[in-house]
C-alpha cells in the first residue's frame, strides 16, 4: 500500500513538474506587442459638427493623484503626433484663443504608491487635474463630464491618454464633455515612436472622420 501511495504521489508530482513547462505568454511578446490601445467615445457627440481643434501646449503628468505640466522631447513628440492625426482626420488647427470646437489634452498617468491605476478614478478626478480656464474664461464655470465608463482597467506602469473635449457644445451640455478618449498602455510607450502609437488610436476610431 505504501508503494502505491508513492506512485500516486509520483503522478501528481509529474503533473506539477510539467506545469513548470508552461510558456509564459508575456515573455513571448515584443515591446510593441505588449501594448494595447483603447478608445471610447460619447455616442451623443456629433463629430461632423466639430471642425476646429487646439492641443494643449504641454503634457499633464498625473502621479499618485498629483498633477504637473511637463514638456519633454517625448511629450512634444506625442503632441505633434496628435496634431498630425487630428489634421489627418479633417480637423483644422487653430489657436486656443480662437475658440476651437474641441480642445485636446495629452496626459501621462503614473501611480507609484499603490502600483495600480484605476482609470475611472482618474477620469473622476479629471476636473482636479485640468483647469477648464485653460481653454478660455467662458468655460470657467463648467466641470468636466465623462459620459462613458471604462471597464476595470488598472495598470502597473505609465499610460498615455489623449482626450478630445467638446468645447463647442459646452453651453448646451452644461459642462465640458469628454467626447473621445484614447489610452495607450503597456511597455515602452515613452521610448517607442509616438507617431505609430497615436496612429493606432485614430485608425480604430473612424467616427472621428465623420465630416
Amino acid at each position: 500500500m505504501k508503494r502505491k501511495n508513492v506512485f500516486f504521489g509520483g503522478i501528481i508530482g509529474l503533473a506539477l513538474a510539467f506545469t513548470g513547462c508552461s510558456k509564459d505568454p508575456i515573455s513571448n511578446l515584443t515591446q510593441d506587442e505588449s501594448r494595447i490601445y483603447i478608445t471610447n467615445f460619447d455616442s451623443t457627440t456629433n463629430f461632423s459638427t466639430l471642425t476646429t481643434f487646439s492641443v494643449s501646449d504641454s503634457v499633464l503628468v498625473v502621479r499618485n493623484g498629483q498633477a504637473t505640466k511637463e514638456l519633454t522631447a517625448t511629450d512634444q513628440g506625442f503632441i505633434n503626433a496628435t496634431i498630425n492625426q487630428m489634421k489627418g482626420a479633417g480637423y483644422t488647427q487653430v489657436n486656443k484663443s480662437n475658440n476651437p470646437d474641441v480642445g485636446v489634452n495629452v496626459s501621462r498617468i503614473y501611480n507609484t504608491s499603490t502600483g495600480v491605476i484605476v482609470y475611472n478614478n482618474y477620469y473622476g478626478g479629471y476636473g482636479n487635474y485640468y483647469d477648464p480656464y485653460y481653454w478660455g474664461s467662458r468655460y470657467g464655470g463648467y466641470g468636466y463630464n465623462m459620459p462613458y465608463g471604462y471597464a476595470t482597467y488598472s495598470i502597473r506602469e505609465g499610460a498615455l491618454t489623449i482626450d478630445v473635449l467638446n468645447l463647442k457644445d459646452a453651453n448646451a451640455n452644461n459642462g465640458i464633455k469628454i467626447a473621445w478618449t484614447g489610452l495607450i498602455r503597456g511597455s515602452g510607450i515613452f521610448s517607442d515612436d509616438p507617431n505609430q502609437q497615436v496612429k493606432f488610436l485614430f485608425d480604430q476610431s473612424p467616427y472621428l472622420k465623420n465630416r
Partner: protein
Amino acid sequence: MNKLIIMLSTIFIATLAVDANAQALSNKWKMQLGYNLSAPQGSFKNDFISNTSFKGAIGEISYAINPKFALGVQSGYQDYYQKYGRQVYHTQANETISAVVSNSMEIIPVLLKGTFSPMGDQASLIKPYVSLGAGLNLVNYRQYLGEFPGSDASGTFAAQAGAGVMVPFSKLNNNTGFKLGATYNYGAYNKNNIENLNNIGVNAGFIFNLK
C-alpha cells in the same frame, strides 16, 4: 522542451528499474507513463486555441480485475498556447481595443478509467485495447491583451474514449511494453466565450508492472 526530454528519459529509466524489481511479483498493478500531444476541437479550437499542443504528459495506475479488464486512475498535463497578431476588438458599446491576444489553457485531467484488452494474457507482438474514462479536468484559463492578463481556474467534467496498441518488450513478460494510443476527450466548459474543451490526443509511452 529540454525539461520534457529529461523527464521522459527519467521515466524510461525508472520503467526499466521498477520492472526489474517486479518480475517475480503479481502482474495486477500496472503503471503507464508517456508523452501526449493534443489537438483542440470544436469551440475550443474555433474560439480559443487552434494550435496543437505538443506539451503534454500522461500517467496512469491501473489494477487488472481479470486478464482482459483493468480499472485505473489517469492523470496528466497539457499546455495549450496561441498568440494572435494585433487586431481590433469591440469590447463595450463604444469601446475599441487594439491588442495582440495571447491565449493559454492548462488542463490537468483526473479520470477514472476502464481498459479492455481483448487478447488478455495471450503472447502477441501487438495487443490492442480500448478504454473509457470519466472524471474531472482542472483547468487554468489565461488570456492576455498585450501584457495584461486575465485568468480563471476551475474544475469541470471530463470524459474520454480511447484506443491503441501495446507492444510487449518480450514474449516472457507481455505486461511490460511500449504503448501507443489515441483518445477523444470531451471537456465540459461554458464560460469565457468557450463552449467546450474537446480535443483529440495521441500518446506514446511505457507500461510496466507496479507490484
